[in-house]
């Protein structure tokens, strides 16, 4: 814990004594995020209350060449908020004001520490809501959502955080302030805001965020279809997409996940090999038409039972098991590792088969719960850390699943981010040239590399000298295609 001379005192002078944490016991609170396997103790935690405070602490870090990591609620699942040893953590928790609600424009402006759900709460009475809905939405913050470009079950139709942010106030890594975007859309110039969102805190700190809120739909209908096999549920998803139906969400849970959910929160799901949840929202007549078609498609795909939620209470029950799926795994396994990968949605059945083969090969069970509509898998690799070698095998299995995602032209992460956890896996998806080009952009924002270093990009220190086997990027592979 060696901070440069004077930095702590200068920080305290700006932020006040209660705005700076230096005691090792208190610092421990900040040593990891939701992925608790990575832990690093910072030297100092700063608790700014304003944009000016953030600028001041960032300027101090810049002046002393000390790395800093911005932190929201710490619910991230990729180690994106893991501190740098001897560095500074800037917690945005105290910047939690809803600054402006402008319903006529459909915009809400917040500080980064406001929780996701509080945005919807701020406009609920007027019939509006904020669409991105990560499972942690009760506690995760908008600042963190911006860093990770968070999605959620309903981003299938309504898009990710980047679709719903219209303006950002950003403190750059040298402490300068820039304003990107506005309340109106599509300002001229390059989409720096689109680049910033999802850059995992490596390009600066968002201190004020303007969000688009949507009118609550006229109708919402949630269908639950039970199948004998997960692949049948997958076929139903393909059928719905092929029919040109834009569902709000399509989620699949397999038998293992269903068992766990039933034990944990008793949602009363049918006893089945897999269930598919399809949520339709929008114009009431459109929802009715689409729902009839979805029911048909599910039957054609072999659904053994169909239920329809027509009241909010029924809908909540349908979603209860799905939202609790990760935590419920504790009921059937001592430990579990959550993977996050993406495959083209037409490849889902094949990928599920291959995951099944891996289970047999590694002698471990995998629960499959996923955002089927957009091909985003969340396999839960079950293990027991008390058995020697099992944690390592579980991690290997999870990595093997990622390689399958790459084989079929998918992505390393759909919503949890690269962070610390997958930085060394980036060469699976991107060539050295791809990564160097991204680094050029990073250096334009942060020439000294002080802003959340060690995340996203593989480094020899982190990964060793030899990168993993590079597979041709999906777009390059597509480039080999024939002229139509």
């Amino acid at each position, binding site marked *: 814990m060696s901070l440069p001379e004077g930095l702590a005192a200068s920080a305290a002078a700006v932020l006040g004594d209660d705005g700076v944490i230096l005691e090792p016991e208190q610092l421990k609170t900040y040593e990891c995020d939701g992925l608790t396997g990575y832990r690093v103790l910072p030297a100092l935690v700063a608790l700014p209350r304003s944009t000016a405070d953030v600028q001041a602490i960032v300027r101090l870090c810049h002046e002393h060449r000390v790395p800093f990591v911005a932190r929201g609620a710490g619910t991230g699942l990729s180690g994106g908020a893991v501190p740098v040893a001897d560095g500074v953590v800037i917690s945005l928790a105290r910047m939690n004001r809803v600054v402006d609600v402008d319903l006529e424009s459909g915009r809400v402006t917040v500080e980064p520490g406001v929780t996701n759900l509080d945005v919807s709460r701020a406009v609920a009475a007027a019939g509006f809501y904020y669409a991105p809905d990560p499972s942690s939405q009760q506690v995760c913050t908008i600042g963190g959502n911006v860093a990770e470009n968070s999605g959620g079950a309903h981003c299938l139709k309504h898009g990710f955080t980047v679709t719903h942010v219209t303006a950002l106030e950003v403190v750059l890594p040298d402490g300068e302030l820039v304003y990107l975007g506005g309340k109106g*859309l599509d*300002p001229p110039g390059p989409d720096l805001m689109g680049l910033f969102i999802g850059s995992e805190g490596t390009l600066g700190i968002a201190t004020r965020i303007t969000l688009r809120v949507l009118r609550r739909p006229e109708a919402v209908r949630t269908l639950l279809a039970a199948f004998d096999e997960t692949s049948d549920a997958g076929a139903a998803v393909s059928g719905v997409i092929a029919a040109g139906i834009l569902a709000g969400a399509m989620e699949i849970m397999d038998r293992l996940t269903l068992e766990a959910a039933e034990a944990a929160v008793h949602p009363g799901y049918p006893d089945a090999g897999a269930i598919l949840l399809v949520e339709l929202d929008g114009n009431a007549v459109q929802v009715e038409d689409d729902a009839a078609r979805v029911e048909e498609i599910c039957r054609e795909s072999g659904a053994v039972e169909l239920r329809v939620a027509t009241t909010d209470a029924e809908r909540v029950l349908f979603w209860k098991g799905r939202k609790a799926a990760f935590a419920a795994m504790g009921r059937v396994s001592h430990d579990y590792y959550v993977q996050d990968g993406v495959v083209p949605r037409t490849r889902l059945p094949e990928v599920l088969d291959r995951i099944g083969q891996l289970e047999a090969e590694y002698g471990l069970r995998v629960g499959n719960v996923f955002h089927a509509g957009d091909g985003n898998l969340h396999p839960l690799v079950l293990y027991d850390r008390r058995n020697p070698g099992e944690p390592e095998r579980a991690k290997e299995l999870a990595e093997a699943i990622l390689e399958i995602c790459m084989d079929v032209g998918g992505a390393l992460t759909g919503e949890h981010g690269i962070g610390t956890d997958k930085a060394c896996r980036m060469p699976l998806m991107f060539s050295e040239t791809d990564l160097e080009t991204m680094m050029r952009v990073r250096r334009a924002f942060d020439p000294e590399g002080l802003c959340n270093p060690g995340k996203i990009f593989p480094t020899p220190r982190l990964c060793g000298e030899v990168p993993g086997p590079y597979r041709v990027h999906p777009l390059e592979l597509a480039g080999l295609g024939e002229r139509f």
Partner: protein
Amino acid sequence: MASASEEVLVGAGSHPALVEPATVDEAARVLVNAAGEGRTVSIERPGGDVVLSTARLDRVLELEAGDLTASVETGIRLSALNRLLAGQRQMLALDPPGDPTVGACLAGNLSGPRRHRYGAPRDLLLGVTVVLADGTVASSGGKVVKNVAGYDLGKLFCGSEGRFGLIARASLRLHPLPAAERTLVVPLGSADDAFRAAQLLHHSTLVPSAIDLLWRKGGGSRLAVLFEGSERAVDAQLGAARELIGGTENGGDEWDEARSRQAAAQGRISFPPGGLVQTLHTLDEALVRPGLGIAFTSEPVGDSGDAGARLLGERVRAALDPGGVLV
């Protein structure tokens, strides 16, 4: 077929030289050669010593009907791509005026009336392969609809006007072709009328695909509202909208007029949708997207963006093209 480097030589006598690379590698060689000769390059527009045309970079690389995605070389025109996609009852939901290439849509961040429902090019872009001025060929994003791995260079290049590099290949999100569409047209007397109608729609549960205000201060302003979906749903929405804001159904001529007014516009401004009245008072004639806060004006407008953001954009440009080859 002459190689790109030969063509650069062939064109060297005339000024500017027009070069039409047929592959990504050829495009990279064009840029490297031009840079080596100290010549500037402009992409798909005049201005550089060398004009790089993407006319031959127009292949469709992959169509995945079941995934609602397509990968293309960006020289393909919207009409050509959408003709192909119509065969599988799908579309790339971009409708800017004219018939630009996909690359022009991305580099200029061009959209049309249906931006209201489907988003801007940046919202439909899943991944890119770009070629930088030094010949670097780099990819970002992917071809799946959900992906947060690495920086989203595709978004960064949206609106970059060809100054950051050539967007050579793009993976795109597609949408199903709607079964039916109908248009409601509402005559408006004043800016206050326009605001009232726009707010009624905004606060309603109707789901229009486009809302365009054809604004003329002296009179004759109209609001055009497009509904798409199943026959029954479009009927229901049109009926409900007529009850809400009045107007009559129209065959859809307004959209042609909207697009041609957009094409003829001299300027573009962004404004808070709640500030529609104030914005309209400053404009004699404009094509306005009230739900989005965008107005295409008949008069040129100054750059109102943040100076810090402009400076940052310039830093990024300098990082990608330090020699200033792309103009």
